[in-house]
């Protein structure tokens, strides 16, 4: 008796990116091709462990024969595709997207977006003063999370991580339309009253610091958050037997934040409340 092996089909697709021939697996996206070709591409709403939702439009590229720019993060590569990532049209579009975002949102902690603003020469001041609705009070409803709506770019990542891309808790969604659109709990109840189970997977995917560990927020407020000094050590969570890898971010010999690698086969970057927040017993006043 034999058992059939399940193997992925090995079909390859050939495309051209900025004049360079690139081969990707069938089903992979233009973004995957850009990455394997070493072409840096900005993304905001895209993450390796989430399904693309195509809302930020910052990863757009020009594809010969396509009328509009296409989002590289979700468009599968097709045989013979000719892709331009650095044409005037692409640069202009990416610059505009970044300027619009930066004109209405506080991107000061969006460490991955900042360099792209510089790269494309995005000038948010072109659109005048900050719009109404900024300077909202930071929402602090418990000891684990803060929500700072001034920093939210509505990328949907938190909604996806809370929903069917990972956690399946569905505690948050986008409520309202247009300028009123915002991430909300059901009926805008306080977080502890919502369906939230405090896995922190929304924080894990937030690109701007709009969702943040309360511990990080407090350290930032005290001007004591020094990421350039952080060491990051990968280890295994101490609770149940699933074996989730944790990345311990350490400052001054103290754990200040926990994440999980997105490419880890066990977690895909997602954790539960114990893994994400349960490390604090390592350093209570009684031990240190």
């Amino acid at each position, binding site marked *: *008796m*034999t*058992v059939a*092996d*399940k193997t992925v089909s090995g079909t390859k697709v050939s495309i051209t990116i900025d004049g360079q021939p690139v081969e990707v697996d069938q089903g992979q996206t233009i973004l995957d091709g850009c990455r394997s070709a070493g072409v840096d591409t900005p993304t905001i709403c895209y993450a390796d462990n989430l399904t693309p939702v195509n809302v930020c439009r910052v990863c757009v590229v020009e594809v010969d024969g396509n009328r509009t720019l296409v989002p590289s993060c979700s468009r599968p590569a097709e045989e013979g595709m000719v892709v331009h990532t650095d044409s005037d049209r692409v640069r202009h579009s990416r610059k505009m997207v970044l300027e619009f975002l930066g004109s209405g949102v506080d991107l000061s902690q969006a460490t991955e977006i900042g360099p792209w603003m510089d790269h494309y020469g995005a000038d948010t001041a072109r659109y005048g003063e900050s719009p109404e609705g900024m300077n909202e009070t930071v929402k602090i*409803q*418990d*000891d*684990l999370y803060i929500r700072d709506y001034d920093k939210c770019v509505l990328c949907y990542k938190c909604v996806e991580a809370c929903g*069917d891309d*990972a956690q*399946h808790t569905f505690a948050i969604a986008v409520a309202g339309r247009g300028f009123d659109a915002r991430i909300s709990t059901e009926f805008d109840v306080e*977080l*502890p009253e919502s369906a*939230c*189970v*405090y*896995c922190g997977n929304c924080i894990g995917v937030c690109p701007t610091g709009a969702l943040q560990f309360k511990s990080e927020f407090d350290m930032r407020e005290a001007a004591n958050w020094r990421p350039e000094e952080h*060491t990051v*050590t*990968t*280890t*295994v*969570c*101490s*609770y*149940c*037997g*699933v*074996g*989730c*890898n*944790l990345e*311990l971010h*350490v400052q001054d*010999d*103290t*754990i200040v934040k926990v994440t999980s690698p997105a490419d*880890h*086969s*066990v*977690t*895909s970057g*997602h*954790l*539960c*409340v*114990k*893994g994400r*927040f*349960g*490390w*604090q*017993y*390592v*350093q*209570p006043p*009684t*031990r*240190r």
Partner: protein
Amino acid sequence: MFGAGGGTSSYKEVEETDVILLWGSNAREAHPIYFHHVLKGLEKGAKMYCVDPRRTSSAKFADMWLGINVGSDVALANAIGREIIASGLTNDDFIAHSTEGFEDYKAHVENYTLEATELLTGVPASAIKEMAHAYGSAETAQILWTLGITEHHNAVDNVVALCNLALLTGHVGRWGSGLVPLRGQNNVQGGGDMGALPNKLAGFQDVVDDEARAKFEALWGHEINPTPGLHLTHMFEAMDRGELTAVYVIGENPADSEADIEHARKLLRGLDCLVVQDIFMTRTAELADVVFPASVAWAESDGTVTSSERRVQRVRKAVNAPGEAKDDIEIIGELARRMGVDWGNPTSEDLWDELRSLSPLHAGMSWRRLEDEGGLQWPCPSMDHPGSPFLHGWLWEDDLGGRGPAPFSCVDDDPPIEQLTDEFPLRLTTGRALDSYNTGVQSGGFNSPIRYGDELDLNPTDAAGLGIENGERVLVSSPRGSVEMNIRLQPDIPVGLSFTTFHFPELVDTNVLTTDQYDPRSGTAEFKAASIRVDKLAASGGLNA
């Protein structure tokens, strides 16, 4: 049944299987990230059946919840086996080639008709039938379980009753099909693998096996006692008989976690010598003659742990241990030195390499490979072996890999030892809540906004009968003792059943109530089935103590 103790399957397999039986496990809360893999399976179209006395948060994701009477799992499994046989859904080639004892099993389960089993288990015959047909006709299927199966006095019977179903259908030993006990602690698998079992040396080699022992003796230059030691539960019995008088506890808190806790504490207090090695001054440490302050294994020292999919992964030192706290390896080495043996100052990698030289399961797992390959799943017998995503592929080999066929086991329904009485008419079962863990030594370190404490979950109908309201403080008594608790009305729990966690022993000494009846073969206590009564505080006059 199949040899070495470990879950047969990789997490990835539950994403690709067709039918999932989640049996006695609330993985949504107790193994949340494993449940993410289950959810991926459900998204791809797998059907899930959840067997649990409670309609748990896991059950709410299932296609069907089978609300079983506490402790009637063998009956349900036998009925499913009978229905699979009666409906011709057996894998006859597999049974003939890879198993033995089928005819006996078939005769044995004959009495477990759908109707008879409905009476024993409380599960409707139609539901039993549907689950049997789904499992029996699936191309691939997995049975997942946790302590709902093993925290019973007939734990081993429960496990083999589930294994029988895999043997009937061939749902074991191949990708997507398997038997998966989810491990409740981050290294309970690794501890067993390393020989922290009374009758095993590292790599599940028997301590009674002269040849296996000789290999260890040759390397260690010392004779090993060939008599198997004692399970934790047996240790407490030996303390009770006055035979065990000195105990060395490493990273465990039995003074809070044991069943029938007052009795356990009395025994610990009565020891001549109690040594505790822990990162905290736990309640057990408070009873100790000597306390060794230890480092946090996963954040302050280097080593490995092994997960529920048998994946050995590195833990790494990220911060320094405080004060005088020392690495476990260093403490044990110093202790040996005081006893006149100098083991030098081995690193965790040195010890790992020694283990690899003794345990064929781990021989191919060099420190380098563990780093580079994101951990490896045992067995991994050589450096060019990729590790094993699933176990027992030999069942499908023409020569069974040189082994004998896997035996069916004939086991019978055997209800919980503590029966319900007029005095104690409610069934109490215990378990974990999402944001907490065991006796709270670790999970007590953070302020969870969703923590509700050890409340007693009760069906509103039972509460109404007692004249008790949601949130009311009541007196909860079992034949062993009483504690005060708050009531949480919970429609998801059936009439006649109550449930609580045991995470806050400082507030509610839940294990005052639980029974220390246990399975002598596994040593696991029947935490899942005590009998209790609930009284209004006004009527009882409250606790005197």
